[in-house]
């Protein structure tokens, strides 16, 4: 393997059009043919899936589900090898394979011989939509469903399918109570994020529920430590050749190895997880490959550089177009391809490059000659001879500032460069300056950094979240619950209009719930469910209501608390908070019974004064 061959091989991992279901097979074949090892790392689920087939395991079938690129087929292959299946048989591409496995006996179970059916790609195996089930496939499906409920089943299964196909396939089977039960079981496992249910002999692993951030760590390590890079370094012989000192590919690989770049990228992926956006392995490899090889010129095929592109790009002064900082967001790709690639579509939602502050733009535009900003400009932009202030940037900036340009071309050009520089700053601003520069204002999630460092981090290490942050969440919720700019953060105000709980403005107080724990059992706290923060409201007498946090919900509530009422920011969040209010009211009503005292009924109206303090007034009606 030469460096050049490695780069050619690597391009296959990039955002180039491929046939989805052949992806893993194609790479394997290519790897075998060229002798270049694939980018491999232990799949986080591998050990858990293997253990399902060990002697101590609970008996039953296994379903691997997840999005395209999560490594379902790959894992099936690993299990096949693990159980001593014939590699030649696997290579033949059959969609249904069988294997006899001997299950050694245990204290409670005699030794048995089982038949394992492997369906490595369910969608390729089931008959086409609209056509009939062939008898033998139907029988096999019935066996699959039966195996879920029979501890003694002699035929067990290992099935790889994405969740949509899985549900669809089960729905297409002729209806019977067993199939209905199987369908409900799978659905329950999928929706509730569990792997097993009591009394059901099925383990379902949803690979899309794994942490993208953890996968990123694994993928990045495997990527950077691939021996291909060593070949590149060894082969570098001239400044302007692949991996020469001027080579952008080399620079990008180095950048990717820098702890700060890694940290920020990982933070974005962690936040994707917190917004329910799962990034599969294939997408991570696309991200890394594109980050390193990307170039936004049409001259570069598929916008991914080869070794041959390197000298030309350097000669043309187009090194800036290979910037890792833009490639990470798919900035080198045409709009259509970018928005069709999940990872770039997800990262696009952060709007990095388009969001900014005066402070940051001042550094970028006036920093060079500004007394106070100069130091930062020098460190962050000038010092970067690759992707910082090159001559193109300096010229465009001058034209923009002087504004002697009749048509707007030059300023538009500069604004484009500005986007790239802002993207770069997101990865360059050192940790010690994050708060001062307000790094997260470069993204649409201004509270993103805080969410990671002061909410997720303490919760993960079983500490409490700062009171002020919890208070802000409560304040945001109060404003939505009441429709008034209330400023209280020590109590949760549950209010309604007289008739409906869902009115925008609610002037009748149903109940106040103390944030600090009270002897009645009332309290509001942020807990952790293993994946996400959860706001739990306890109302006493064992009644609670939970509100699951996402990054978007946290951002929304924080912004509402800070004074904005961004009803357009997310209608969905508003609806979610209102649904939570309904749940709370339901629980409160269940707790109270009727709010009548002998001889009178009372109403509590809610008004706020100019400082946002809530004033209550009690009105009694005598019976």
């Amino acid at each position: 393997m030469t460096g050049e061959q490695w780069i050619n091989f690597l391009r296959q991992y990039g955002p180039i059009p491929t046939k989805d279901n052949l992806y893993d097979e194609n790479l394997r074949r290519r790897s075998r043919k060229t002798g270049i090892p694939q980018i491999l790392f232990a799949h986080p689920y591998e050990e858990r899936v293997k253990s399902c087939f060990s002697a101590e395991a609970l008996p039953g079938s296994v379903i691997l589900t997840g999005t395209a690129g999560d490594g379902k087929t790959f894992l099936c292959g690993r299990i096949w090898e693990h159980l001593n299946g014939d590699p030649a048989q696997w290579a033949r591409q059959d969609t249904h394979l069988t294997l006899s496995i001997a299950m050694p006996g245990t204290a409670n179970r005699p030794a048995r011989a089982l038949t394992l059916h492997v369906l490595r790609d369910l969608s390729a195996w089931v008959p086409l939509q609209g056509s009939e089930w062939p008898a033998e496939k139907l029988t096999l499906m019935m066996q699959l469903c039966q195996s879920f409920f029979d501890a003694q089943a002699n035929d067990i299964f290992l099935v790889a399918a994405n969740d949509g196909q899985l549900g669809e396939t089960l729905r297409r089977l002729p209806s019977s109570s067993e199939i209905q039960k199987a369908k409900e079981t799978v659905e329950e496992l999928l929706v509730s994020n569990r792997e097993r249910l009591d009394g059901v002999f099925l383990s379902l692993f949803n690979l899309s529920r794994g942490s993208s951030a953890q996968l990123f760590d694994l993928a990045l390590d495997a990527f950077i430590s691939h021996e291909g890079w060593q070949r590149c370094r060894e082969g570098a012989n001239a400044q302007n050749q692949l991996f020469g000192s001027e080579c952008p590919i080399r620079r990008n690989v180095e950048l990717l190895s820098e702890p700060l770049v890694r940290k920020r990228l990982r933070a974005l992926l962690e936040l994707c997880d917190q917004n329910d956006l799962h990034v599969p392995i294939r997408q991570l490899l696309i991200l890394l490959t594109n980050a390193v090889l990307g170039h936004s010129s049409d001259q570069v095929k598929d916008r991914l550089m080869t070794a041959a592109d390197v000298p030309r790009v350097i000669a043309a002064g187009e090194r800036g177009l290979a910037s890792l900082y833009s490639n990470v967001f798919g900035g080198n790709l045409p709009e259509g391809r970018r928005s069709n690639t999940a990872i770039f579509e997800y990262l696009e939602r952060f709007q990095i490059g388009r969001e900014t502050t005066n402070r940051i733009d001042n550094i970028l535009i006036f920093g060079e000659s500004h007394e106070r900003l100069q130091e930062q400009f020098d460190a962050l932009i000038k010092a970067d001879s690759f992707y910082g202030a090159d001559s193109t940037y300096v010229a465009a900036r001058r034209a923009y500032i002087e504004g002697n340009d009749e048509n707007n071309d030059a300023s538009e050009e500069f604004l484009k460069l500005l986007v790239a520089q802002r993207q770069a700053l997101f990865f360059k601003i050192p940790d010690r300056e994050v708060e001062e520069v307000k790094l997260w204002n470069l993204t649409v999630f201004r509270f993103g950094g805080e969410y990671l460092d002061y909410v997720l981090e303490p919760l993960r290490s079983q500490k409490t979240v700062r009171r002020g942050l919890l208070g802000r969440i409560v304040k945001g919720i109060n404003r939505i619950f009441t429709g008034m700019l209330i400023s209280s953060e020590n109590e949760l105000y549950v209010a309604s209009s007289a008739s409906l709980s869902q009115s925008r403005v609610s002037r009748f107080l149903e109940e106040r719930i103390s944030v600090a724990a009270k002897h009645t059992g009332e309290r509001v706290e942020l807990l952790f469910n293993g994946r996400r923060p959860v706001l739990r409201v306890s109302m006493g007498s064992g009644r609670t209501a939970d509100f699951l946090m996402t990054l978007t919900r946290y951002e929304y509530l924080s912004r509402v608390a800070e004074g904005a009422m961004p009803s357009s920011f997310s209608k969905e969040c508003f609806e979610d908070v209102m649904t939570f209010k309904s749940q709370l009211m339901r629980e409160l009503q269940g707790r109270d019974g009727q709010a009548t005292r002998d001889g009178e009924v009372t109403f509590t109206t809610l008004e706020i004064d100019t400082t946002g303090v809530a004033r209550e007034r009690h009105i009694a009606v005598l019976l």
Partner: protein
Amino acid sequence: MNYTPTTKTPTPTVADRERESMWLEEKFWGHRLWDQQSPWLTFLEFLCVGASAYRAGHLFDFDKSQYPSEYTAFGRVHLRNILFNNEQHIGRIAESTGDNATAWAKWLAWIEGNARGLDAGQRAFGYLRERFESFHDFATLVKALRSCIVEGDTNKRWSSRFIFPFGPAAIFEDLSIKDEVPARDYVNFGRSGELLYHMLARSALREQLSAIFPTRVLNGNNKWNLLVERLQPATAESGARRGVATFLPYDAHPIFDLIAEDWVHLLHLRLPGFDVIPYLVTSGTFGLLLYQLHTSGRIAGGISKPSMICEVVAPKKGLVRELSIESFEENSFLSVDALEKLISSAETHPAWNAQGSPTDRLNSRRSVLEDLFRWSDEKQVNDPEDLLKQFRLEAKERHRRHFGQVHRSFGRGVGLVSRRGTNRFRYAPTDHFLRCLVFASVRKRVEFSELLAHLYERYGLVFGEREAEDAKSEQGIDKKPFQQNALRLEHRLSSLGLLKRLSDACAYVENPYADQS
């Protein structure tokens, strides 16, 4: 499909025909579906019947729903004077008069001089003073109740305004108050609500409904109902007899069961307080729309379940919009087709072609039309051949003005039919309507494509390609626009917090209020 005609039908002499010139739509669809009645007014009228039956201990009782069924409705004229007759006055007095006793005196003097619909003996409001701690409290709560006016934005006379139905004390009928005497009026309460009641009372689920409905809707023991009750004098009103002329021609009908199932489902949701009511309102009138449509299709011939192609509003016009307009127009025309068929049926009557002199024949035909449709030409027609023509002309004209509008007007009322972005009506559901569908038909959760299939199967609503292919099987459709339509629906449901996407291949619609048990 079980359409069982009722055996107890009104005879011409018994029927209070309310100046109607014929008994045509009334005979086959009922007396009557009233196009000018909004979903809320329908529901409030329904509640008048329901509350009365509940008081008498026979809520949703099948036998008591048979013709002629009666109920007692209340006017609650004191309450309505306080809430709606010169609304500003209470607030003005409360603000301008610091002293409690003076404020009461001022207002009582005013109301006792200006209250309407009450005779001299009834015009006393002094009871209020003992029930509130201050006039200011009274004014605040009256203001709160006024903020709960049903359809508050329409400019109606004060005797046709209604407050939210907090409980039995807040349920009253529409009145016209002339010359101090309140009288029942059929403009706002046109009997659609009465029919809705009878449909539910004749549905298969009537017993379940009668068990759960009062606990969620007619429960008087909540503070708002108690407040409304305290605004009224202690002596109970005797009420007025209503509903004798109401007539529903079926004892069983698939739509009766459909509405009842949806209601039972809605009533079991874990919604707090009164939140279920707006969904009952929408679902009830949507049921009436389906009843009108399905019955029309059946009479017109062979169409057991008309489909409705719905556009989830797209930024620009496209195939789905065109087809939804077409589908709406076809469906609107079904009742006209049905009518035509009914009118023509006179010609197959044995007496229609009786032999004899032209005068004999004319008289014989007159008696056929009198017999079938209670219509008389009032001796205006001379030629027996012109008689049916004249009848058809009058029938269609009347149909066009009211019954023929039911489909459109109910559809708009519930948020199914809209003209948004076009100048023609089509099916383009609102968020509230979509939410109502999910609440009424999703038990806990259902996969998105299953929901589409279910909405088609149950209501005839078409959103996605598979359903469109089935509904338009005779001509075939382009799938792509319907895929996009379904995608837009998915986004809408997701923005309403009702849809959870598991992956790019799988999404579930979830009912957040589903009964957990």
